[in-house]
């Protein structure tokens, strides 16, 4: 009992993937009974609430979330906060899943020939929720504030392409020297340090949204509380009872097309409480499960087979790849043949279906769909025979002479399942021995990004979710050798690759830029730098009366502005 209680308590801590807040936390024993009993009841007929819920009468949607750490666009760094912020605030431009840019508060913009100056023209009639006009000055203020080290913004580096941003953030230069200036109320001029073809992508992210200076100066750190917050998006914050619920109400003064939904009530659940979230969904207390929740693996089977619920289960692609990071500083792993052998010996289809029970798709390459330059066909395919042959060529026939290697992961059921699968699979096919090492979440994170980790670990579980759907967010930020060891590079260094992606970053011509990234991709594939596992997909439960729920690939924010309720 002691161990069970301990395990349950540990699960209750929500130790898996807190960033996306999707920890799988079965209340193992009791909820297993729940599965059985509801299954026996044929989907649970006769529950008062479920029967009475049917289609609602109002344009109100109820959805689950965890407590947002902040509603300040300048400070937000996690999916939960960003989901709510994206309903409350908006910026200059936005992108769709086809990669096309659309104007939001900027009605037009110009880029100088050298690619270093952007001039944005704001729409007329933009208003903050307190009636003040939204002006270019609010953008200038926001960017200078967010890059100021005293603000301590997690995403301050989103502003780095702007002139002097790094000097301000790293060396404490005056924030007023930042290369952004409101020429008048409707004209914003931005000077870049060097050409950055992805700057519009950055301009679509939350860190570059405008901010209401007066509200921040009046409210201090608590300016984002209900009653104090001033916003410029299609919804307004009506109430925020911390760790309980957060209610958004339609902004009837919004300049653009107004949402159909009148209200969105976010019910706040503890970290990792998908079992409770699912129970609330089945009892009709919430209308969808959103992309911030992963359905409990112990229940996925039941949901997929339930005659009613299987129709409410939807899959959406995500800009997110899970992989195994390889430490290139370990002699045995420096050999490309070894890395490739490890990678192509895995049966991903089976791993996902039977072991991880995740809705993802097998991945052969590192970059997910939607990232320009990506060429999965260049990457080696799964092939056990070839894997064995590669190991033999590398000097380890049937694993003889290969050192024991370690796979490190953060303590969570799903990664444990992955680790055990890999251990068994590599033993059976390649004859090598893998030691498993798990760590508490924060310990793992510290270990993973500490300069010294590369001297200790061999393989560890990794993954990346796009902040914005541009190759820069992958090829440059993750695999450029300058990002080692604090990113996912793993000690791999290839001068040709570095030169290609650095040139591509500033390339103004889209076709030429993609071509450069394609060359870089070929190098990644040739060196097989890390081991891809799967592209993630969102698996979301949506009640039949909820219409137009289609989350974007990047971030998967709830599209509240497009959604509607089919009322009775």
């Amino acid at each position: 009992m002691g161990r069970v209680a301990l395990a349950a308590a540990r699960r209750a801590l929500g130790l898996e993937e807190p960033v996306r807040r999707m920890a799988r936390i079965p209340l193992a024993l009791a909820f297993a009974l729940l599965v059985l009993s509801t299954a026996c009841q044929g989907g649970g007929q006769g529950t008062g609430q479920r029967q009475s819920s049917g289609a609602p009468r109002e344009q109100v949607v109820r959805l689950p979330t965890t407590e947002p750490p902040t509603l300040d666009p300048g400070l937000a760094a996690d999916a939960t906060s960003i989901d709510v912020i994206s309903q409350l605030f908006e910026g200059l431009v936005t992108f769709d899943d086809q990669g096309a840019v659309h104007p939001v508060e900027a009605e037009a913009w110009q880029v100088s020939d050298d690619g270093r100056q952007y001039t944005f023209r704001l729409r007329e009639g933009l208003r903050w929720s307190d009636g003040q006009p939204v002006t270019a000055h609010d953008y200038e203020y926001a960017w200078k504030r967010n890059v100021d080290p005293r603000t301590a913004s997690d995403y301050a580096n989103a502003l780095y392409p702007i002139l002097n941003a790094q000097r301000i953030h790293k060396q404490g230069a005056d924030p007023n020297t930042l290369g952004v200036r409101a020429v008048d109320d409707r004209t914003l001029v931005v000077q870049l340090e060097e050409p950055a073809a992805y700057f519009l992508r950055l301009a679509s992210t939350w860190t570059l949204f405008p901010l209401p200076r007066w509200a921040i100066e009046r409210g201090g750190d608590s300016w984002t509380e209900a009653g104090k917050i001033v916003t410029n998006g299609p919804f307004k914050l009506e109430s925020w009872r911390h760790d309980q619920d957060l209610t958004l109400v339609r902004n009837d003064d919004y300049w653009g097309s107004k949402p159909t939904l009148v209200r969105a009530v976010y019910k706040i659940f503890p970290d990792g409480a998908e079992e409770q979230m699912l129970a609330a969904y089945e009892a009709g207390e919430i209308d969808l499960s959103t992309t911030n929740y992963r359905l409990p693996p112990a229940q996925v089977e039941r949901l997929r087979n339930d005659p009613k619920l299987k129709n409410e289960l939807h899959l959406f692609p995500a800009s997110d790849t899970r992989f195994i990071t390889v430490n290139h500083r370990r002699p045995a792993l420096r050999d490309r043949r070894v890395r490739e052998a490890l990678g192509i010996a895995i049966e991903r289809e089976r791993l996902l279906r039977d072991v991880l029970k995740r809705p993802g798709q097998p991945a052969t390459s590192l970059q997910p769909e939607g990232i320009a330059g990506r060429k999965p066909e260049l990457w080696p395919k799964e092939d056990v025979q070839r894997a064995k042959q590669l190991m033999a060529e590398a000097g380890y026939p049937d694993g003889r002479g290969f050192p024991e290697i370690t796979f490190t992961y953060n303590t969570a059921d799903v990664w444990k399942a992955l680790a055990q699968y890999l251990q068994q699979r590599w033993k059976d096919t390649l004859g090598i021995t893998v030691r498993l090492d798990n760590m508490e979440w924060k310990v793992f994170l510290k270990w993973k990004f500490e300069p010294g980790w590369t001297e200790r670990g061999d393989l560890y579980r990794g993954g990346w979710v796009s902040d914005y759907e541009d190759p820069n967010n992958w090829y440059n930020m993750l695999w450029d050798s300058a990002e080692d060891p604090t990113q996912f590079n793993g000690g791999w260094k290839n001068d040709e690759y570095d030169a290609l992606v650095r040139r591509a970053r500033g390339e103004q011509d889209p076709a030429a830029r993609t071509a450069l990234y394609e060359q870089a991709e070929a190098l990644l594939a040739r060196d097989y730098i890390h081991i891809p596992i799967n592209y993630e997909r969102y698996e979301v439960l949506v009640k039949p009366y909820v219409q137009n729920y289609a989350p974007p690939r990047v971030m998967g924010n709830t599209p509240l502005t497009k959604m509607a309720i089919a009322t009775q």
Partner: protein
Amino acid sequence: MTGYVLRRLLLLVPVWLAVYTLTFVLMQLTPGGPWDREKPVPREVREALDRKYGLDKPVWQQYTDYLVGVVTRFDFGPSYASRSRTVNDIIGDFFPVSLSLGLMAMAVGTALGVTLGVVSALRHNTWLDHLAMLFAIGGVSVPAFVVGPLLVLLFALNLGWVPTQGWGRPEQAVLPVLTLALPPAALLARYTRAAMLDVTRMDYVRTARAKGLSERVVVLRHALRNALIPVTTVAGVMLAVVITGSFYVEYVFNIPGLGRYFVTAVTNRDYPVLMGVTLLFATAIAVVNLLVDLLYGYLDPRIRYD
């Protein structure tokens, strides 16, 4: 009496200091920090965050700064995880929830436990006694994380009588209060039964019966009052446990209580929240113990505090 209470309250000061120091040392020793996130935080950002929250100062200064803040301004610091709020805000929001949940559970648990205990003692070795003791064994041995979801399954999902989760409306309190009340009820039933069996064999109870007092008076005024002394000790401990240890019930039923928040703060390495809540819980336990000691004097006039 007043002197005794004052002495006990003064004793809290070294207790606080010890708890503060121990917690501080443990936090320093725990690997991983508040800025270790899934997406690596650039060094400059970490440094900026450290500066903002004073984590760049020497350890001894962090130790004294926080202490000074608490003593002079009653300021338990900012929360790292919830950036618009301070620890004072968080305790102010969530402690009342845990407190009322705990008090409700304790009221239900005491009423149920003492009643069951008295009934089993009076009907010693009958089926009623056995049934009550079966409940008592079940109540102590089946943990909240089994009872809670089972109650949800039965009363919320299958019968649909109450919501599965949430806080604020009376119907939302039913299941969590019941779940939380079961262990104290079970424990108190056992203690009350044992104490009642002892007491009812005493001479003064026989005398009371011989005087011709009604059974009600004998049981309530003579037997139960004395039997309650050991029971009070247990109830005091249980009260502290129920108020400070309700995290699992708060988690299962999605109740915005301090226990649940405390556990999240551990995962987030939210040091000021950890410290503030630890000090608060230490105080709560000390205060409950003091109240229990004072209650002894009321129950047994022979116990005096001079």
